């Protein structure tokens, strides 16, 4: 079986499970007695383990297995949830995430898991160390996870008459340089036989990452007394317990019996939870398939071809005046319109996909910054085009971090200003018309107008004279100018001096807008306005001479006509007066070097498209207006790049290509 075919599916599903584990863990944190949540996590972890196992990612499988063990204890109320346990599980999930990422990028999914595994084991058996010194039986069960190589070495050695010992060495509690003592113990042990493994690992012992005892697994021909005598002689060693292991010769057997046992436990538990698991399944099973976005693009291309052919058929039908043909074409038109809506819809994805990773991020960050915060998410069902979704994540991460790091005060500061200690950051999405709005707001201290202004003057972004005339909004928008950071010190969290200008650039590259509102003492709001989709836009089709161009609707304010005598010049620049405003004119035929045709002799009246950017206007002079239409945005490809004034192209109903005007470039 070629596993590669399943790899993509495995990665996708792993990510889904990880996301759901993350979500549920966050719920669990606020509702720690709810075993239903633990069950949910357990199920996801279990599935993940199974998948990883069958795909041959053993590290991933065994790590998940350890996590599952802990979860199992939790759901059977053998353990109570503490914040330490949560932290370890979160860490574990992060590690699994990294492994999956590594697999996705073609790696082998291997990570250093020892630390987390040890922590997980410690949770499962918190009295581990004490118990060992108290009882020999427990000492013998201290778990060595042997890899295949070690297992082979052991089984070969025992066949040739060697003994396998598990040795627990405890150092004096007031021993100063534990790692050196441990090193001496290793040295002594190595004279007697062969060390197979240690708990914790040798590296950890060298870094003194152990309490006051550690355990060795070694092969030796000597008797346990001899070993004991040799090791206890190392100074500052308090106690040495040597156990001869017999059950370890066949580690596979031991392991498999253990899994059988845990499997049994699981099946019992599963029976118990059968009912609620059924409920959960019903809830989750929405019938869907995954489709590559490229395939959707292809479908879209083919579909636009179909529309073009439809246009031709329509013309033929009209000419031929065959009523049967006309009816068929009309029917086809209706169906294809529906089809178009459907295809466009298929590209729409709920913003939830992006939003759902934020609660976890905020949690971690809040811990790191030692702030209390609640993240409120609204409107995660709002839909956006897939291409926009993929791009919007990073800017949002930046804004949320910004809100938490710079916006919110610490709990003490909040208490001092009579606010509730726990701050609120809210992330809200909603659709309105052809746009989706996303707001990131916090109830923190707001933006300090003076501070921003001072900084702006200091950095020569504005002059002092200008500064006096700026409105609040204009001052806040200074934050978006490049290289601007109001933080007194650049913190790790807000990303090493990379400012909001990057966010703004990104949003604008998506055809969106970003603005800031702020009330001192009450927090700030970042508004983002995004187009629903990048691939389809509303545009006005206009004609210049014989050529057709599309001007995107979102920048158009109005379309007007002007007589020759309404046009005047100001310092050589042709302008008109429009609603009391002086509007400079842009002659499209000149800018686009449109070759003149004979038909252009009579030009008494000119059509002018008024476009706006910020609070400035321009009038684009054209010959005639064809009409408004939804157009499919297409790139001009890798050859024609950086064309002035042109932002792309679209295909018209007659199969011809029309260029799209980027009216922002007229300013």
């Amino acid at each position, binding site marked *: 079986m070629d596993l590669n075919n399943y790899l993509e599916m495995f990665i996708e599903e792993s990510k889904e499970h990880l996301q759901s584990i993350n979500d549920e863990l966050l719920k669990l944190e606020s509702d720690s007695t709810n075993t239903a949540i633990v069950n949910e996590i357990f199920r996801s972890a279990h599935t993940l383990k199974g998948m990883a196992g069958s795909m041959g990612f053993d590290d991933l499988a065994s790590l998940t297995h350890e996590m599952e063990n802990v979860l199992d204890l939790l759901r059977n109320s053998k353990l109570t949830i503490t914040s330490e346990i949560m932290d370890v599980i979160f860490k574990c999930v992060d590690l699994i995430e990294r492994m999956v990422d590594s697999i996705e990028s073609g790696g082998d999914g291997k990570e250093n898991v020892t630390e987390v595994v040890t922590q997980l084991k410690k949770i499962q058996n918190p009295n581990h160390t004490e118990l060992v010194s108290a009882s020999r039986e427990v000492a013998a069960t201290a778990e060595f996870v042997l890899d295949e190589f070690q297992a082979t070495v052991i089984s070969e050695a025992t066949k040739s008459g060697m003994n396998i010992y598990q040795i627990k060495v405890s150092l004096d509690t007031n021993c100063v340089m534990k790692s050196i003592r441990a090193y001496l113990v290793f040295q002594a042990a190595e004279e007697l036989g062969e060390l197979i493994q240690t708990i914790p690992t040798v590296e950890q012992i060298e870094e003194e990452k152990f309490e006051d005892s550690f355990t060795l697994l070694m092969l030796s021909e000597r008797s346990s007394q001899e070993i004991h005598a040799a090791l206890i002689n190392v100074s500052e060693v308090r106690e040495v317990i040597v156990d001869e292991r017999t059950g370890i010769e066949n580690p596979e057997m031991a392991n498999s019996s253990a899994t059988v046992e845990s499997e049994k436990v699981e099946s019992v538990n599963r029976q118990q939870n059968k009912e609620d698991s059924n409920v959960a399944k019903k809830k989750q099973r929405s019938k869907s398939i995954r489709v590559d976005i490229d395939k959707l693009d292809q479908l*879209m*291309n*083919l579909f*636009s*071809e179909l529309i*073009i052919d439809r246009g031709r058929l329509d013309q033929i039908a009209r000419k031929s005046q065959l009523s049967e043909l006309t009816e068929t074409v009309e029917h086809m038109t209706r169906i294809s319109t529906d089809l178009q809506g459907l295809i466009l819809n298929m590209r729409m994805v709920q913003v939830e996909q992006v939003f759902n990773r934020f609660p976890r991020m905020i949690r971690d960050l809040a811990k790191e910054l030692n702030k209390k915060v609640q993240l409120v998410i609204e409107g995660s069902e709002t839909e956006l085009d897939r291409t926009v979704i993929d791009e919007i994540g990073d800017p949002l991460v930046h804004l949320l971090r910004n809100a938490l790091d710079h916006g919110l005060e610490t709990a003490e500061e909040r208490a001092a200003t009579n606010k509730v200690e726990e701050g609120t950051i809210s992330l809200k999405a909603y659709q309105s018309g052809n746009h989706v709005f996303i707001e990131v707001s916090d109830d923190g201290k707001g933006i300090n107008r003076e501070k921003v202004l001072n900084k702006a003057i200091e950095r020569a972004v504005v002059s002092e004279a200008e500064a006096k005339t700026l409105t609040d909004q204009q001052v806040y928008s200074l934050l978006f100018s490049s290289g601007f950071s109001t933080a007194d010190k650049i913190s790790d969290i807000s990303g090493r001096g990379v400012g909001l200008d990057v966010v703004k650039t990104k949003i604008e590259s998506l055809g969106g807008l970003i603005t800031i509102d702020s009330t001192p003492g009450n927090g700030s709001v970042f508004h983002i306005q995004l187009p629903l989709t990048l691939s389809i836009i509303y545009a006005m089709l206009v004609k210049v001479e014989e*050529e057709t161009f599309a001007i995107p609707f979102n920048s158009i304010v109005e379309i007007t006509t002007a007589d020759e005598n309404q046009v005047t010049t100001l310092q050589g620049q042709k302008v008109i007066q429009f609603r009391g405003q002086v509007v400079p004119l842009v002659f499209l035929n000149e*800018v*686009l*070097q*449109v*070759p003149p045709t004979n038909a252009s002799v009579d030009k008494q009246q000119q059509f002018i498209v008024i476009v706006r950017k910020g609070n400035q206007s321009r009038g684009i002079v054209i010959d005639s207006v064809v009409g408004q239409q939804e157009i499919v945005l*297409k*790139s*001009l*490809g*890798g*050859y*024609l*790049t*950086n*064309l*002035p*004034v*042109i932002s792309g*192209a679209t*295909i018209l109903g007659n*199969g*011809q*290509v*029309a*260029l799209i005007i980027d009216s922002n470039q007229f300013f």
Partner: protein
Amino acid sequence: MENIKVIAFSLRDEEYGLNIDYVQSIERLSPITRVPNVPSYVKGVINLRGNIIPLIDLQSKLNLGQVEYSESTRVIIVKFEEIELGFIVDKTSNVINIPSDAIEAAASSGFNTDHFEGIAKYEGQLIILVNLKEIIKTEANESDVED
């Protein structure tokens, strides 16, 4: 001995060849939309089954002057790395196999070598092999200069 498969086409009365590995398809000329502010040999863009493809008049690109397009005018759609474009040529003849030892380096014949890989002798004819990479590269540079 290795053979090179090329698509043979003519510009004026000369025979040219383009390595078939880069060729996607050969199309009839469809209505072209002019693109402003580009070098004069860029004739504009066409809609090729839903994709926008820029067209280059190879004749004017190679400074051979310009002729009227006729019924036999064809567009060779090529793809080089991520760049897709079409070359307008007078007519295409066929796909030919040229043994690699029948190709002479363009430099040895002493003419403008930038755009050509070599000259192939094929059944008594001389076929100029176009260096696609150079043609596309110089395009990009030139338009940069114009910016």
